[in-house]
């Protein structure tokens, strides 16, 4: 069974901390994505990557950065966490030019 695994289901961090969210996929997919999901706002794209070491800004990249050193792993970094980054973060992957994304189960991040 193909999988996208996010390292933590729940995370509580303090304001100003540097936060790393990790995502690993075992499907050899070229593309990986980070979304945040907020009530009433749906899914908003933060960053995506279509190849190792490549990254593209999504719709809301401010306050975030990403790293993709290996094909299977895509990390989201909050350089200095703020309370407005409290959210559900979803990682996804897809092969080539496909609309069929596979999502992880999400990391619910609370910044206090």
């Amino acid at each position, binding site marked *: 069974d193909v999988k*996208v695994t996010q390292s933590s289901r729940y995370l509580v961090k303090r304001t100003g901390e540097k936060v790393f969210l990790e995502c690993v996929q075992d499907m050899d997919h070229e*593309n990986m994505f980070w979304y945040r999901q907020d009530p*009433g*706002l*749906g*899914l*908003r*794209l933060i960053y*995506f990557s*279509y190849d190792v070491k490549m990254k*593209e800004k*999504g719709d809301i990249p401010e306050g975030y950065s990403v790293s993709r050193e290996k094909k299977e792993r895509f990390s989201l970094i909050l350089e200095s966490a703020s309370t407005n980054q409290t959210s559900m973060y*979803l990682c*996804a992957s*897809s092969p080539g*030019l496909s*609309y*069929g*994304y596979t*999502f*992880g*189960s*999400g990391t619910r991040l609370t910044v206090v």
Partner: protein
Amino acid sequence: QQQVKQSPQSLIVQKGGISIINCAYENTAFDYFPWYQQFPGKGPALLIAIRPDVSEKKEGRFTISFNKSAKQFSLHIMDSQPGDSATYFCAAFRGSNYKLTFGKGTLLTVNP
């Protein structure tokens, strides 16, 4: 700028009824229009998708109707069941940039 508008925000249907969720898009450059289903505590999962040159696609109890001239598409769930209770997202996919743009989601509740 919201490229995919989805309504209603929430929907309550009786078991056996028809659930209808509507979406509208603005950009004509999209290549596919998928729907995703999300259960609590899980990431969204691909449910069904349609190309813009097709007016209808049916898979079991789920049907997408597509109106290219009106730039609208909708998901119909026939004989709705309590197990269909979930959040549904419509989306639009552009192959040239690998990206899915999601609607804000509809929380469907099917009462027994």
